[in-house]
């Protein structure tokens, strides 16, 4: 075999092959470089997409906070009592301007309340004067604030509800009217 390669004919054939091999190796090196570059780009893309997700969540949280702070700012300037319903702490805060008047424990929250009722501002749209003091408040036609035995007629009977103690509901029920503001915190 070795002797065969040394023949002039074989020498003539081997040279272009060597050149071709060289070209091939260069092309392979180039592909490897491009592939490495692509891998780095993928890493950067993943990192950027993760950062984008984090920032989107942060911006959404800051927007929610700003909405609440602006609500408080308006309420500090207004002359009306208002409610802040903290769904996580299951507590309502009856407030007037910058003062907290009363903490009201939320005894029951209907299932799926968070899904059905948007966080943010809601106004009392209706006071329901039930028989035998079975009163309730309808907020924004979106949910009902009531005590255990409140009578909520149709069409509001199917609305999500928050149950508080009778004495807590009555502590402000008689002194407020439609338009009283409430803010639902997620």
């Amino acid at each position, binding site marked *: 075999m070795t002797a065969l390669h040394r023949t002039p004919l074989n020498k003539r054939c081997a040279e272009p*092959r060597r050149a*071709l091999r060289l070209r*091939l190796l260069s*092309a*392979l090196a*180039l*592909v490897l470089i*491009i*592939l490495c*570059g*692509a891998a780095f*780009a*993928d890493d*950067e*893309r993943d990192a*950027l*997409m993760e*950062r*984008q997700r984090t*920032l*989107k969540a*942060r*911006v959404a949280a*800051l*927007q929610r*906070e*700003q909405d609440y*702070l*602006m609500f*408080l*700012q308006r309420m*500090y300037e207004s002359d009306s*009592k208002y409610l802040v319903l903290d769904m996580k702490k299951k507590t309502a805060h009856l407030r*007037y*301007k*910058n*003062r*907290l*008047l*009363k903490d009201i424990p939320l005894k029951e929250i209907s299932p799926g309340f968070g899904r059905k009722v948007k966080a943010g501002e809601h106004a009392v749209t209706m006071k329901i004067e039930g028989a035998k003091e079975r009163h309730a408040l309808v907020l924004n036609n979106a949910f009902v604030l009531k005590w255990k035995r409140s009578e909520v007629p149709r069409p509001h009977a199917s609305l999500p509800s928050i149950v508080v103690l009778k*004495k807590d509901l*009555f*502590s*402000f*029920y*008689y*002194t407020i009217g439609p338009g009283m503001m409430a803010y639902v915190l997620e």
Partner: protein
Amino acid sequence: MNTDTYLRSVLLLIALLATAASRTASGESSPSLGELRASVAALGGEAARLEEENRGLRAMLAQQEDGDVYIVVETENNRLTLRQNNTVLHTAVCGTGSRKFIEAETGTNWFFETPMGSFSVLGKERNPVWIRPNWSYVEENMPIPPANDPDRIVRGVLGKYALLLGNGYKIHGTTWTKLLGTHFTHGCVSLGDADLELVYSTAKIGTKVYLY
């Protein structure tokens, strides 16, 4: 397969790999790296702006927090609460307006209701004296004496202390301690002796009183 065909196949494969790699790098199916970088920068700017604005809003709201003690009277449940910075310092059972209506023969009438709203302590009195108003005589079917009649001056019925809220309304003591927790007063807020002493010693002239 001869050598040329083999080489051509390898070159074709390399070309395909290179194309695929360059496509991955430029991300033809998803946003380009440049677009992603721009989006992240924009979101970062948006977050920074919102943080700055929220800091300002919080500062504006905090300016209105004075840390002062304030009094809250819940007339429906007859409860008086001393609060500071949203913290409850003390809760007391109190008496508030009876929501009764009386009318004199002359046609003058009175409705005994505790006023609602925001008030301030305008004055502090020790051993307050009650000057019996006309309704007190009407209520007991007694003839109304002249305005400066010394019989109108009654001592010891308002407890040891009184906080003046204006228009004759006060937070004071009572001899009717068994009625605390009910609506029995003529509009003032009544407290038991121990609670009154605490509220009196804590409140200052100007202390805010919220009646609702």
